[in-house]
């Protein structure tokens, strides 16, 4: 591992303890619900009990009679200011509050503003709404059937089709499949799930009517983008961007769910503007699960073509995407299906074609990139399931099949059939390491023995390639804003620094890792580099933290900005030491004269000189800013192996072992990287075996609380085993790639493959996640292993 600084400096490769933990372990974190302002009011929201209904009447009179209830805001009120609709990140439109029709169960209907939280809740209970329920579209497969209601006539639609997207060579792929020796095919559904961060969403909107200034305290992963969106949406009512300040302080988990602008934020702003007082809105858990953006919900018809000895030749995937009543996905503008075209995976083959159709239904909008760089989870699940499917078809060991088909190290940079340039990779060693740690060959022998006496065990592999770090400005933007990110470093005269970023940590440990990057480049101890994010008045503009982009973009910006400062330091050193710049050499923390190492100046001396004794004509001070536009995306990869045992009577599944080998390039802080992987693995386990948002045929959500939306506990979560290989990113200033999402992407197929492998000898070729004991039990009955009572 790259690590050439002392522990005191704490640059790259040190497992520095996190700076942020002092406050978090002592109850001094500052989350949005901790904000308390003088005169602050509370908002609570009346929500629809129907998935699709006309609103006939809203009677707020009883609510308004409650002492302390100040206002009930409806869509009609917002309509007066043209604030009842807002744009989504995908250029669709979303209701802030409805004027006529509700489109999903738990949609906002109106908002109660009161002097206290409890009174606002009483107000919500007292509002009487008259609805005329209509037959909801719940099943995405039926959304395009003739005779279905058209959900979005306002968009000029005559059916419920949103968009068609495709990538690859349809003709060549079809031809290949028509002539292939082996074709395997499965219908693979990735269920609708929720990020379920432990902190829900919320805000305090504080509008100062005298200054026409809005301060918005909120749980957002992208504060700058939010500020711009607010200015765009509400510019016409006087919210000018220089008078909008977004403050995201500590965030209790984001995972993509805190990227969108939710209606509640806009209503709170409107309420604060109308009443002239700060308004707090904090969702409860049920609102969070039932109404905030979902993730996934792709139904994929997957096909893989190969020779009969197992050379993969082509991939074809057709997907139906359920977006709810509006496309509120959080993708880069040109990528309606995100980076789904990474679906060719870690394997070398000639052709692929993928197409997708998105439809409207009566469900909440989305989908967010839940701990995944825009639909990579779906793509990886498809290819990694299909590789196992092929192995089963041709009777080849699934590890062997992967090894034979991996893109070879010498093929990088590798141009994938769907248009990506994989920057670097070395897939074989990662899989081999996982196999060695888990004892793969022994496990296969054990499995063969166990099958003889009816015991069920399975071994599942996933060898994923991710695509993260959006992204290069030529292709990547959100609402037109290019997806660069930024760092600004100021070093004070005594050699201590503050650095600010356009990203926003939600637990990733930026206060520690960014300091380490700067420490690495400048030799200033990380402990003396204070990191700040989340206040749009002070931090440089950036697109925020999601899609594993912080290290690839803002981390790179930090390194480049620090190198600008090092260049300045060299000039000052040359001046002070009276030598030419070329005669100086850098060693972490100081410049010295070549051949005369006793003649040197430390970074602290050079910084001090920049304020006290800088060369004439040089700009004083020691500050640099950089907006980093990445030349390419980064491509972290890994190989995971999962071992499961299944109770043949009940279908209960026990994860015996799970080994995760990750390669995220150069590692900034091994402790934090490992922590990210542990957490992501549990978030991968969740949809693999537990979590799914479930709707009945009328569109009511059946499991909208933590009683029934089954977030894994420490008991369900196994003890994760981790390891790494290092293949540095060739185009990133410090060779890093980003890691936060790899485990969420890689774990579900590894677990699914293990469970399916345990049942494959019974003729099972696929099971959709979440794979529950009930599903396994159904199969055991169907295959005659056990009898129902």
């Amino acid at each position, binding site marked *: 591992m790259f690590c050439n600084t002392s522990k005191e400096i704490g640059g790259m490769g040190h497992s520095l*303890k996190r700076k942020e933990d002092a406050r978090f372990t002592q109850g001094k974190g500052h989350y949005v*619900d901790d904000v308390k302002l003088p005169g602050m009011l509370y908002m609570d929201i009346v929500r629809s009990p129907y998935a699709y209904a006309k609103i006939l009447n809203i009677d707020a009179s009883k609510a308004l009679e409650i002492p302390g209830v100040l206002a009930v805001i409806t869509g009609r009120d917002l309509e007066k200011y043209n604030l009842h609709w807002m744009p989504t990140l995908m250029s669709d439109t979303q209701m802030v509050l409805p004027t006529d029709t509700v489109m999903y169960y738990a949609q906002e209907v109106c908002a109660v503003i009161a002097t206290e939280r409890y009174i606002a809740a009483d107000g919500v209970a007292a509002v009487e709404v008259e609805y005329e329920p209509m037959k909801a579209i719940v099943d995405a497969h039926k959304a395009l059937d003739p005779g279905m209601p058209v959900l979005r006539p306002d968009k000029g639609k005559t059916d419920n089709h949103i968009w068609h997207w495709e990538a690859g060579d349809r003709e060549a792929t079809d031809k290949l499949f028509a002539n292939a020796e082996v074709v395997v095919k499965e219908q693979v559904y990735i269920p609708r799930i929720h990020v379920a961060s432990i*902190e829900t969403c919320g805000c305090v909107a504080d509008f100062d009517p005298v200054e026409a200034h809005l301060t918005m305290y909120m749980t957002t992963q992208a504060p700058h983008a939010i500020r711009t969106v607010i200015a765009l949406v509400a510019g016409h009512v006087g919210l000018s961007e220089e008078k909008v300040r977004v403050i995201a302080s*500590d965030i209790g*988990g984001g995972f993509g769910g805190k990227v969108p602008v939710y209606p509640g934020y806009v209503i709170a702003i409107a309420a604060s503007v109308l009443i002239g007082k700060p308004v707090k809105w904090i969702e409860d*858990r049920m609102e969070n699960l039932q109404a905030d953006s979902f993730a996934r919900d792709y139904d994929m018809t997957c096909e893989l073509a190969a020779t009969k000895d197992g050379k993969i030749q082509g991939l074809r995937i057709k997907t139906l995407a359920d977006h709810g009543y509006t496309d509120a996905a959080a993708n880069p503008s040109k990528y309606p299906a995100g980076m789904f075209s990474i679906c060719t995976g870690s394997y070398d083959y000639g052709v692929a074609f993928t197409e997708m159709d998105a439809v409207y239904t009566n469900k909440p909008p989305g989908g967010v990139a839940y701990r995944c760089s825009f639909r990579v989870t779906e793509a990886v699940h498809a290819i990694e399931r299909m590789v196992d499917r092929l192995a089963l078809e041709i009777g080849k060991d699934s590890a062997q099949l992967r090894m034979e088909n991996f893109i070879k190290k010498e093929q990088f940079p590798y141009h994938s059939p769907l248009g990506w340039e994989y920057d670097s990779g070395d897939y074989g060693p990662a899989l081999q390491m996982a196999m060695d740690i888990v004892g793969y060959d022994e496990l296969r022998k054990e499995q063969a023995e166990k099958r003889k006496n009816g015991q069920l065990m399975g071994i599942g592999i996933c060898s994923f390639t991710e695509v993260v770090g959006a992204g290069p400005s030529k292709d990547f933007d959100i609402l037109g804003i290019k997806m660069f990110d930024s760092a600004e470093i100021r070093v004070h005269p005594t050699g201590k620094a503050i650095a600010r970023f356009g990203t926003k940590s939600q637990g990733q440990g930026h206060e520690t890792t960014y300091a380490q990057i700067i420490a690495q480049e400048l030799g200033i101890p990380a402990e003396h580099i204070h990191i700040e994010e989340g206040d749009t008045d002070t931090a440089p503009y950036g697109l925020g933290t999601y899609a594993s982009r912080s290290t690839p973009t803002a981390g790179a910006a930090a390194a480049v900005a620090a190198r600008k400062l090092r260049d300045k330091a060299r000039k000052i050193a040359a001046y002070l030491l009276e030598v030419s710049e070329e005669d100086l050499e850098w060693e972490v923390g100081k410049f010295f004269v070549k051949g005369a190492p006793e003649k040197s100046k430390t970074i602290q001396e050079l910084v001090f000189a920049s304020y006290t004794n800088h060369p004439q004509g040089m700009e004083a001070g020691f500050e640099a800013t950089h907006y980093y536009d990445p030349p390419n995306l980064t491509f972290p990869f890994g190989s995971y192996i999962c071992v499961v045992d299944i109770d043949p009577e009940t279908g209960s599944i026990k994860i015996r072992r799970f080994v995760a080998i990750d390669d995220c390039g150069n590692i900034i802080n091994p402790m934090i990287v490992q*922590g990210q992987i*542990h957490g992501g693995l549990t978030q991968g386990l969740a949809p693999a075996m537990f979590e799914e948002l479930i709707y009945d045929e009328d569109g009511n959500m059946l499991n909208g609380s*933590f009683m029934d939306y089954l977030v894994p506990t*420490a008991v369900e979560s196994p003890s994760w085993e981790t390891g790494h290989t290092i293949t540095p990113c060739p185009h990133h200033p410090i060779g890093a790639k980003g890691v936060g999402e790899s485990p969420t992407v890689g774990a579900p197929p590894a677990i699914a493959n293990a469970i399916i492998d345990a049942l494959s000898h019974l003729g099972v070729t696929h099971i959709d996640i979440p794979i529950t004991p009930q599903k396994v039990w159904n199969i055991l009955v169907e295959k005659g292993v056990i009898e129902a009572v």
Partner: protein
Amino acid sequence: MANITVHINGVPQTLDVEPRLLLVHLIRENLNLTGTHVGCDTSSCGACTVLMDGRSVKSCTVYAVQANGKEVTTIEGLAHAGQLHPLQEGFKEEHGLQCGFCTPGMIMRCVDLLERNPNPTEEEIRWGISGNLCRCTGYNNIVKAVEYAAQKMQAAEVPAETVA
């Protein structure tokens, strides 16, 4: 309104409260101790965990009036005389937290756990924190943090016993 006296972190607080006031809101809103969080409202997640008479409880599912006359300890009351509790230290040393939102509740739960079982096995720790959800860490390092604290607390106790 009900008049109650609750000893919060050792300090008696006498207040008039609505009977429906939840203990978590008494702590957060009336007393401004915002280290205790609300995560789920259904006593499923444990972010609101505090100690009541030394035992961990989920303060989102306790009325403030139920705490009348009781000792309530929150995360803010855990460190003594500037000395962090071994669990607070353990969570930092072993990277047992990321976003920090579940952390106060998790730590308070573990105080009770170690009080009853000073040397728990990994399985006992996992079952012991099964009412506290963490969405960030995957629990591996929380287990290690509790083990760290258990060892530290036991090491601290040995000399005391020797002296006695």
